[in-house]
């Protein structure tokens, strides 16, 4: 007679796993990764590889020697954090800075809270913001995209479209002036004319900026894949992007020369990256759909406030981190609709 296992129901499992979810996110990031390699060449590969390896290594070391628990690196979450970190930095960032970023991402923002699932803030964003505050110069010198493998050395650094526009508006110029006439700048002792890339270029990713924020279309593609695999739901990306469009649209309607149009906001400054990949991080976003709507809205409004009136041109990281802090509150305040709550008898 065999010995029978006795355990509580259910006796079957759906087969989903943390690993499957994490690798789903990784697959979703591949289009954006390819675009960044296309525009930034080896630099993009280098930054991504270093960030991923460092994140995985730090997680392994901390889990083994400090937490002394079973290894968790196989679940893929460290790889996701690594790629997201890489997506949020310029492609010419020195290796040692990337490694520091990875240490903050994994060591401080993730493992110190107990590892995967326990972190209140999005780890890659914590790493990114830490680097932005500690190494402002390196973190904001963006190589201009040069088409595939034209070599690292040639890359010219230029500002991000959003950062540049904000600076020039700050100087009293109008949006049309900056957009149409460009700006004379002194780069390496030479006067050059910097022009804001065309919308099509912005949309495809042909602009200066962090690795992964480049191509809106590639990011949307990844988002659709994650929606399809039910890794994310539409609530956060749609409310996030929607509220940015509405808010900047109102400002633009008030004064189109002081505030740039919503389309520009939409495809620059890592909004797509943030709304699709960072704000939707299941660990650090609200659980209920209602909560996610509020969260997305909060992210959108904060992003615009920071972009338009704050000290930084790109508000996405800060906005998401601030909203992360509200997640426990949102979770407590917004319960899912209980069965039988609304008794509609008909």
């Amino acid at each position, binding site marked *: 007679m065999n010995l029978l296992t006795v355990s509580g129901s259910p*006796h079957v499992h759906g087969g989903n796993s943390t690993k*499957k979810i994490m690798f789903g996110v990784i697959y979703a990031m591949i289009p954006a990764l390819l675009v960044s390699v296309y525009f930034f060449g080896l630099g993009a590969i280098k930054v991504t590889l270093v960030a991923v390896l460092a994140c995985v290594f730090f997680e392994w070391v901390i889990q083994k020697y400090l937490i002394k628990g079973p290894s968790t690196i196989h679940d893929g979450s460290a790889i996701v954090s690594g790629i997201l970190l890489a997506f949020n930095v310029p492609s010419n960032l020195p290796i040692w800075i990337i490694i520091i970023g990875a240490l903050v991402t994994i060591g401080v923002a993730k493992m110190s809270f107990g590892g995967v699932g326990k972190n209140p803030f999005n780890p890659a964003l914590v790493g990114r913001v830490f680097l932005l505050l500690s190494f402002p110069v390196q973190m904001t010198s963006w190589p201009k995209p040069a088409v595939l493998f034209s070599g690292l050395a040639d890359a010219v650094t230029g500002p991000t479209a959003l950062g540049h526009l904000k600076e020039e508006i700050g100087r009293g110029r109008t949006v049309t002036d900056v957009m149409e006439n460009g700006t004379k700048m002194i780069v390496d002792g030479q006067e050059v004319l910097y022009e804001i890339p065309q919308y099509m270029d912005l949309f495809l990713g042909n602009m200066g900026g962090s690795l992964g924020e480049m191509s809106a279309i590639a990011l949307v593609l990844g988002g659709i894949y994650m929606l399809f695999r039910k890794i994310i739901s539409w609530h956060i990306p749609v409310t996030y992007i929607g509220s940015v469009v509405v808010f900047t649209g109102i400002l633009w309607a008030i004064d189109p020369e002081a505030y740039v149009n919503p389309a520009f906001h939409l495809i620059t400054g890592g909004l797509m990256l943030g709304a699709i990949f960072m704000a939707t991080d299941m660990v650090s976003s609200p659980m209920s759909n209602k909560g996610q709507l509020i969260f997305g809205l909060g992210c959108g409004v904060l992003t615009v406030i920071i972009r338009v009136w704050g000290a930084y041109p790109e508000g996405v990281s800060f906005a998401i981190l601030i909203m992360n802090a509200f997640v426990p509150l949102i979770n407590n305040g917004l319960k899912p609709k*209980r069965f039988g709550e609304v008794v509609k008898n008909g």
Partner: protein
Amino acid sequence: MSVLKTFKIGGVHPPECKYSAGEAIKALELPKQVTIPIAQSLGAPSKAVVAKGDEVKVGQLIAKGEAFISSNIHSSVSGKVLKLDEVLDQSGYRRPCIIINVDGDEWDENIDRSTELKKDITATKEEIIKKIQEMGIVGLGGATFPSHVKLMVPDGKKAEVLVINGVECEPYLTADHRLMLEMADEMVIGIQILMKGLDVKRAIVGVENNKPDVIEHLNNRVKDYPGIEVCALKVQYPQGGEKQLIDAAIGRQVPSGKLPIEVGAVVNNVGTAFAVYEAVQKNKPLIDRVVTVTGKNLKETGNFMVRIGTSVNELIEKVGGLPEDTAKVVSGGPMMGKALNSTDVPVVKGTSGILTFEEGEAKRVETTNCIRCAKCITVCPMGLEPVLIAQYAGNELYENVEAERAMDCIECGSCSYTCPAGQPLLDYIRLGKYKVGEIIRNRSKK
């Protein structure tokens, strides 16, 4: 095609694995001995009315349900009472049972054993209820709630519609499926009897659309009977849950902590409707039922008409014996069934299926950190937050467990089934419910 109805909140769709759907119901040979537990329904245990050495016939009363919520138990065989003893049953505990050695197959002479369909319902409402109680009919969907109690609508409430559960949403199980195909006429008459007993003019049979043969067959059958409609439902687990089925079929949600009658509905399973037909029209007590025997590792699968008290072993022998690699045997479906610690236990009124798992299937997935994906919340058909309740229960914060409406949990298992981190959510929730139950009982004592 119109949009199929289903319940509104949560739900999952596990692989259906209905291997035995094509197997006609076969009568299992008479066992040599039956072990009939005295407590087979929800409510108070019944009291044995036979003693060691007594000769009994098929259908003879052997234990009487004396409380309001309790049920009569009849002998499923003819022979001699060997003893009254505490025997291991499906619960895994020793419980009082009546053990009968089988001798021949002599039936109580009041039972009409002909197969002739008896359409005319001559019994009055009161007679129907009395008969159902007398014949020991209980809910055959698994909950084994005494059926006569369901027909007694409390004062101030009114039954408007009878909902018949033909959903069989548990994977693997096909007993109801076969019954609806093979005994449709009897079942439909049983539904009419229940309608008369409840004094309602309308009955809805809910069937998921993965059983198109049943839907077609029943639609043909109910034509001759006014007031009965067949409602095709979109496949979704746990549609067989009472509250979910009412929501799906008539669009009403039973409030928290309330019974279906609150929204004018009474739910009965198709197996129960069949048993009611036999009880009222044929004077036959509940002494047998259809049981599905299935499993990926079995050579054969099947649906058998089994006398209550037959050992699970004999059922498994019938399909070629228990394979070597069997690691788990479940009574019921894979989502809500109960793992048996021995196959030497009797089939009872609530046994809908016997399901075997080989080692790989029996093992639970590894548990890792919750990643707060909220999938458990999305699938919970009661709109609860399983992750939260489980955490509170794990930390022994039972007041919070109660405040999070853990008592609404129907233990469908959708949350554990879905969790990517392999969290044993329902285990914790059950523990929490148990403790909260104790707390509530203590409170009402004061």
